[in-house]
């Protein structure tokens, strides 16, 4: 086996056996998109279903999201709030994970 292949093999195995880090911005972006879309679809679904009282439980989110309601317009507002929340949670998880993983790696 040539030296270069041996080196590459070693490098690849090192990658495979190292500890993964999370790209904070990417995780925040993905979290934001998933949560934003999720709340948007959930709101829209209830609006389309209709009925005498539309989404009384989901509507309680207005406690946290001022201006949010289970309406066509509220779904857009919900999208932004959901995205904001998802991004914040994603960023927080990734940030904490990276810090803890680094710390644990240094200690080991």
């Amino acid at each position: 086996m040539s030296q270069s292949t041996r080196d590459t093999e070693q490098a690849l195995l090192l990658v495979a056996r190292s500890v993964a880090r999370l790209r904070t911005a990417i995780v925040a972006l993905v979290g934001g998109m998933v949560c934003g879309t999720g709340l948007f679809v959930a709101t829209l679904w209830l609006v389309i279903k209709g009925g005498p009282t539309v989404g009384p439980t989901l509507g309680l989110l207005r406690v946290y999201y001022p201006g949010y309601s289970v309406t066509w317009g509220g779904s857009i507002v919900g999208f932004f709030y959901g995205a904001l929340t998802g991004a914040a949670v994603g960023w927080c998880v990734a940030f904490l994970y990276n810090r803890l993983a680094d710390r644990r790696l240094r200690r080991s």
Partner: protein
Amino acid sequence: METPPLTANPSETSPRQTIIVGAGPAGLTAALELSKQGLGGVVFEADDIVGGISRSVEFRGCRLDIGGHRFFTKVREVEDLWHEILGDELLVRERLSRIFYRDTFFDYPLKPLNALRGLGFLESCRVALSYLHAQLFPIPDERTFDAWVSNRFGRRLFEIFFETYTEKVWGMPCSEISAAWAAQRIKNLDLLTAVKNAFLGQGTRDGEVVTSLIEQFLYPRLGPGMMWERCSELAAQGGVATRLQHRVVAVQHRADRVVSVEVEGPEPSAAESGSRQRHACDALISSMPISHLVESMEPAAPAPVLAAARGLRYRDFLIVGLLVDRKTLFPDNWIYVHSPDVRVGRVQNFKNWSPEMVADPSHSFVGLEYFVDEGDDLWSMDDADLVSLGAAEAEAIGLFLGSEVIDGHVVRMPKAYPVYDDEYERHLGVIRDWLNRFENLQTIGRNGQHRYNNQDHSMVAGLYAVRNLSGAALDLWSINVEQEYHEEKSSRPTSRGGAQPPATGDRLTPARVQNRLDDILESAFAQYDEIAAGAAVGVTTALGLAFATLFPVLRGQPDFLPTLSLLGQYLFGFEVSWPGLLIGTAEAGGLGFALGWSTARLMNRLVAAAERDLERRLATITTFEL
């Protein structure tokens, strides 16, 4: 055809005298190439027949193939050479082989329905679960054969279809056999591939034909020995004769060059005492067992090299040929016998290899193969007893009746297989390092390189060894028969010193390796830190709950609080109060930790399957460059 004159006096020797040791596929291919290039040379063969382990032994007009030699190669030049040597006498044969295990015949390669029927429903479920387990929890240390195969096929399938047979062949536990052997012999094949091939036909992966599943092959009309008998004749016509019953017993060297070899012939010579003759040479191409070569060197090799040579192990082989009074026996070319209750490892049906292997069409001729160690009980057994044993075991597995056996013949083949134990790479490295200093010495062939080669690999080594005599600089240890991978960049020079390399030498460069490494890099995943993931999700969840509770309180929205308190259904003790908040936050943190930890763990387990695949592909690359 007159053979070139040989003499005991080096000064009278031709200026380009090449000595080839061994008239197996590697040695005779080298001899033929030597004759084509008009270079002088001679082949010394210790035995009284050419072909090495690829010989055909005659018995009562029948021909016995030592081990069953399929002629299949991906190397165009080798295939062309086969056709050049034998022309129309090379037959195209269909492969049919089965496994005999627990009184049942299984198609090989395995076919799902056939295997399911043979194993039964419950055993099949065990196989499936075992495979699943191997995928989720592979054995991390894959250095041994059992680990390598279990990781690809599952432990249960390993036990059924690999363990007994492999231990019969190698005479040692699978846990002591290096995975290198499995990687080379079952390269690129795993259970999914085998199953896929069984359903969809001949398997390919990125255009690669999976090694163990070749369904058609070429075969000489009178067995593999016919190829090498003809090759020997052609080489002799070109001036490179083969001298049978000439055993090389010593190799003299001086100033890092081999200068002569001492040969023990069948008859006493006037020039030397006894039957020994010394032959000067300009180059030595040796296919004798590399351990013998080292031990034959004069002056003697250094002690560590000799110790390494003695550390190389071989597996020996004997075959019991039985002439059976029955026109047809079974449809297979050969049958693998996995059953532990008989000692035979494989049964060849030579009539199905070529009808002309049997003299009388109303008879059949089979070979029962026993994998042995020289000197063990089977090796030392009388021929007549071995014939009786063979007949009894054939009857025991239901092939034919012992009373149908007309006659039998035993052939013993020492050093048939180089053993890949844990130490062989280290020993071989020591030997190679020492032999590399001899600029006019090259080793070729299965035993010459202590590699479990097929004959096409050995032939390529023979060809390249001769081309090196003409100025090429081809590394014989880098040859791999999977050369189609390397043809894409055949214009890339590999010869040192600017010489135009031989066409096939170009293919030695593992051109596809780089491409494959790029592919592999894409499959390389790092592991998630499970504790860190658990902690991060746990802390975030706890903070989220605390925020969700405090926010409405601080904003003065008490009407929402009863709804929020419903979380107490899941977080026991949670309520909208300071103590309740503390309890709830702690519980949310714990649940978050469990969620993060288990997610990371699950991902790591699944990614481990990709990592295992990565290592397997790397192992494949390693075999390209060995």
